[in-house]
């Protein structure tokens, strides 16, 4: 039942890359963006070589083909997260744009001054700033589910926040720093009982876990292709169709209309209503191929493999004197290990590891308030995906010992 990682690695040509002569890359930065398998790269190339045309309005063969590839990918994505229909999948550029779509369209139509939006202290900037902007523009109020010392959401405080009848609860399914997998179903159920609509930031969960939006009962669910073996430039917003139907359009222009008069327009039906202009067609095809790729392997197997690597990595990192890990234990988190090394700034850690081809990220990972909460400006972060191995964890650990030596 375990993954054949050796075989999987062959699908990712970049993993053979040397960053300097004789130094092969050890890619531990999939939380920022994943690498892309040949299957995805080739699907996009084939699209450009064989089928490229603008979609929807053409009747010629190429346009028909391009349209069905674009829409076919939408069907695959819908199935991948178990949406009840492909009409509920809106293509966007990424998670950030998906969240902004909700903030611009749904929130501007439904929130007024004084209305409460609940977020959490572990949000990525993409699920903070759109709401800050609405706070300035509309006078909405924001409150936050606290993060406990061990990196979990404080659900008792959440329950008391719900007494204030929020209109929206928006939270990340999985933290990109702590790795915490939040109890999404419970958070959503409680929000619904309090009468709130729920938006889930699925940027980290869709790539790594089995996500079923219907079982979760999420109202909106946002994610990016590039973190799940797909290309950059495309993401998706899932929304329950009655909500999407009732929302005003987001961007105006071609494709999103049913009819245009000189002084007025009628919006198109779902999902096209929210997709103005020529979209990222090749990227949609690549997104579909990424979903095919992950499905063929099996998300449960991928999650199990990542769990094994993460558990091993946390154990090994913990042994290193001066290393401090952030986030919950392995059984409550995905494949992320954020840490600090005493006396050495995370940038220096990352830079020195890079000399051995080890790619980790350093900084606040677009979660500045979370770092402030833990009283640190930055962390180093290693993250794991289906193609990572325990040997790569060993390289990381040896690399950290080298860093310590240089700064001793």
């Amino acid at each position: 039942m375990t993954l054949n990682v050796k075989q999987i690695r062959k699908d990712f040509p970049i993993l053979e890359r040397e960053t300097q002569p004789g130094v092969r890359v050890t890619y531990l930065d999939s939380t920022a963006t994943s690498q892309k398998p040949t299957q995805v790269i080739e699907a996009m190339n084939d699209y450009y070589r064989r089928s490229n045309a603008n979609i929807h309005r053409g009747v010629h063969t190429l346009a028909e083909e391009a349209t069905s590839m674009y829409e076919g990918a939408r069907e695959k994505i819908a199935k991948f997260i178990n949406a009840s229909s492909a009409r509920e999948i809106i293509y966007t550029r990424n998670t950030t744009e998906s969240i902004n779509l909700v903030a611009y369209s749904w929130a501007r139509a439904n929130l007024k001054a004084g209305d409460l939006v609940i977020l959490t202290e572990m949000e990525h900037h993409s699920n903070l700033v759109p709401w800050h902007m609405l706070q300035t523009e509309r006078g909405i109020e924001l409150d936050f589910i606290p993060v406990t010392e061990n990196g979990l959401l404080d659900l008792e405080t959440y329950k008391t926040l719900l007494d204030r009848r929020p209109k929206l609860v928006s939270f990340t399914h999985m933290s990109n720093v702590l790795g915490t997998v939040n109890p999404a179903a419970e958070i959503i159920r409680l929000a619904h009982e309090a009468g709130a609509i729920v938006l889930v930031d699925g940027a980290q969960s869709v790539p790594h876990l089995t996500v079923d939006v219907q079982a979760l009962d999420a109202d909106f669910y946002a994610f990016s292709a590039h973190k799940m073996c797909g290309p950059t430039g495309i993401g998706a917003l899932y929304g329950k169709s009655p909500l999407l139907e009732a929302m005003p359009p987001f961007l105006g222009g071609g494709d999103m209309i049913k009819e245009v008069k000189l002084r007025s327009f009628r919006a198109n039906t779902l999902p096209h209503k929210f997709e103005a202009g020529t979209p990222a067609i090749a990227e949609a095809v690549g997104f579909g191929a990424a979903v095919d790729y992950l499905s063929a392997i099996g998300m449960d197997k991928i999650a199990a493999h990542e769990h094994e690597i993460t558990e091993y990595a946390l154990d090994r990192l913990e042994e290193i004197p001066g290393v401090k890990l952030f986030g919950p234990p392995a059984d409550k988190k995905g494949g992320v290990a954020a840490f600090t090394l005493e006396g050495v700034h995370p940038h220096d850690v990352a830079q020195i590891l890079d000399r051995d081809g080890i790619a980790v990220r350093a900084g606040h990972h677009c979660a500045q308030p979370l770092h402030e909460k833990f009283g640190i400006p930055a962390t180093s972060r290693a993250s794991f995906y289906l193609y990572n191995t325990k040997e790569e964890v060993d390289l990381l650990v040896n690399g950290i010992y080298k860093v310590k030596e240089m700064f001793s």
Partner: protein
Amino acid sequence: MDDLYREVIIEHYKNPSYRGKLDPHDISFADNNPLCGDHIQIDLRVDDSGVVTDALFDGHGCAISQASADLLMESIIGKPLEEVKKLNKDSVLELLGIELGPVRLKCALLSLKVLKAGVYGLGEASDSLVE
């Protein structure tokens, strides 16, 4: 091991000579590197003829940003502000004696940006100050 972590850089990072705050001071300014949250404050004392008589930096960041701040403070003491205004990217790279990629260059130049924003009395340390 490599140039980037030359001994002098590690030494200035671990044992800076110009770390601290000046009270009173004539010029004080602080800003962040938005990429990584590194923070630098610079305090200066300037005499009547416009010459820097004292300079200290404070804050946190990587070895490159802290070492370059320390070296920069050392280099401006005794210099007229008019000369400080002329410092640019190359002056800092010369002090460090290394070459840097685009990301780490931001770390190295943070202290100069903060210094020049303070000297010019600007509200923000922008990239255009060091180009």
